[in-house]
C-alpha cells in the first residue's frame, strides 16, 4: 500500500499571474510522517504552492492532489493551514475562535489549545482586536496546531514572533503532529528550523531546484542546509 502514503501529489503544476510565472510545471510527491522545509527566497513561489494545496487558487495547468483528492471539502478537513497573514476578525474573543474551530473541525482538540494559550500566557477572554501582532500570530499558530490533521501547511510560521517564543512554537509543532502526519513549512529562517527537518525543497523562480532528505544533503554535499541554501541562492 505504497499509494496510501502519498499525501501530496503535484504533476506539472503551474500557476501564472498575468505574465508572471509563479510556479512552473512542478512535479512533487510527498509522503506522510515527514517534516518538510519549503525553502526559497521571497517571490520564489512558496506561498503560491501552499495556496494551491489549499485550493485558495486554481492551477493554470497541471494537477494537485492532497490525500488523493483535489483540494476541496475533504482536503480542508484533513489539512491544517496557517496562512502568512492574519485572518482574525475583530469582533471575536480568543475563546470564540476556539469555539469556531471546534465547531468546524472534528479533529480540533480544545484542551490542547487551552493548554497552549496558558503556556504562552494568552488570556482566552481577550478580544482578538486588542492583541498585539505577535500575539495574534501565536493565537493562529495555536489553533492550527491544535488539530489532529494529516497535513500541516505552515506558511512562514515563525517570522513574526520573538526568538524565545520561536523555540516554544517549534517544540509545539514538533510535539503536536502525530507520527503519520506531515508538516510542510515554508520559511527563509533556515538556521532556526534546520535541526528538525527531514526533507527540504528548494524553490527558485517557481522551479524546484532540489528535493532531498536532509541526511542526504549532509552526506553528499558535506554541508548544512543553511550553507547549501546560501550557496544555491547566492546573489
Amino acid at each position: 500500500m505504497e499509494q496510501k502514503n502519498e499525501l501530496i501529489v503535484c504533476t506539472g503544476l503551474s500557476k501564472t499571474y498575468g505574465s508572471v510565472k509563479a510556479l512552473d510545471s512542478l512535479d512533487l510527491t510527498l509522503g506522510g510522517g515527514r517534516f518538510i522545509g519549503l525553502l526559497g527566497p521571497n517571490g520564489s513561489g512558496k506561498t503560491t504552492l501552499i495556496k494551491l494545496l489549499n485550493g485558495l487558487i486554481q492551477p493554470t495547468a497541471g494537477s494537485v492532489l492532497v490525500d488523493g483528492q483535489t483540494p476541496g471539502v475533504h482536503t480542508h478537513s484533513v489539512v491544517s493551514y496557517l496562512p502568512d497573514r492574519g485572518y482574525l476578525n475583530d469582533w471575536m474573543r480568543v475563546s470564540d475562535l476556539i469555539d469556531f474551530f471546534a465547531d468546524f473541525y472534528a479533529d480540533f482538540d480544545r484542551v490542547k489549545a487551552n493548554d497552549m494559550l496558558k503556556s504562552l500566557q494568552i488570556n482566552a477572554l481577550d478580544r482578538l482586536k486588542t492583541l498585539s501582532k505577535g500575539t495574534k500570530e501565536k493565537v493562529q499558530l495555536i489553533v492550527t496546531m491544535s488539530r489532529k490533521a494529516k497535513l500541516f501547511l505552515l506558511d512562514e510560521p515563525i517570522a513574526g514572533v520573538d526568538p524565545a517564543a520561536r523555540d516554544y512554537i517549534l517544540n509545539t509543532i514538533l510535539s503536536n503532529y502525530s507520527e503519520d502526519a506531515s508538516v510542510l513549512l515554508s520559511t527563509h529562517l533556515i538556521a532556526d528550523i534546520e535541526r528538525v527537518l527531514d526533507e527540504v525543497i528548494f524553490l527558485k523562480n517557481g522551479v524546484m531546484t532540489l528535493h532531498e532528505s536532509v541526511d542526504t544533503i549532509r552526506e553528499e554535499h558535506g554541508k548544512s542546509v543553511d550553507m547549501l541554501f546560501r550557496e544555491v541562492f547566492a546573489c
Partner: protein
Amino acid sequence: MLKLLKYEWKACARICLPLYGAMLLMSMVSALMTTERAQDFMSGIPTAILGMLYFAMLVAVFVVTLVILIQRFYKNLLGDEGYLMFTLPVTVAQHIWSKVIIAAVICCLSGIVAVLSIAILGSGTGLFTGLAMLIGEFGRIIVVDPNVLGYMLEGILLLLLSTISGVLYLYLCMALGHLAKKHRVLMSVVWYFVLSTVAQFVFSFVLIGMGNGPMEMVVQAIGDMVVGVPPQVLLHGVLLGFCVATAIPGAICYFGTHYILKNRLNLE
C-alpha cells in the same frame, strides 16, 4: 451549513440588534414627545429636534443594514478573513447561501423594525385602532375570497425573492470587482454601474420588443390564451410570473458569484 449560519448571525446580530433596540426606544420617546403638552414645552424645540433625530435614526437603520450586507461578504470572504473561511471544510455554495439567508433576514428585520417604529410613533393618533380594523377587514375578505390570502403570500414571496436577488447582485459586483488586480473596491462600484446599465438596456429592449417584432406575436399568443381565464387565476399568474422574473437574474448572479469564488479566487 447551520454552523455557518450561526456565526454569520452572530456577526450581524451584534451590530443589528442594539441598533433595532435603539430605534424602537427612539420611536417610543418620540411618540411621547408628540403629545400636545410636550409640544408646548419650550415652544416645541425639543420635539422638533427629536423628530429630526428620529428621522436620522430611521435612515441609519437602512444604511447600516446595507453596509453590513456588503461588509460581511467583502471582508469575510474576499478580505484576509477569506484565508480562514475558504479553508473550512464547507463548499462555496454553503458560504454564499449562509450569507444570503442572513442578509435576507436582517433586511426583513430592518423593514419590520422600521414599520413597527412608525406604528409606535403613530400610536397616539388612533393608528392602532385603524390598523386593527384593517386587519379585521382583511380577515373578512379572506373568508369571502381565499384568493386574497394567495395574493398576499405571493406578494411576500415576491418581496423576499427581490431582496435575495438584490443581495446576490451586490455579491456578484463584489466578486467581479475582486477579479481586478488592484482598486478592487473601485472596480466593484464600476461593475455595479455597468451591470445596472446593461440590465436596464435589456429590460427596455424587452419592453420595446413587446410592442413589435417577434415578441409581439408571443404577447398576442399569451393574450389569446388568457381570454376566458378568470381574473383571479390571471392575477395569480401575473404575481407568480413576477416571482419567476425576479428569480432569474438572482439565479444568474448566484451562479456567476459561485463560479468566481470557486475558480477565480485570488485573495491578496
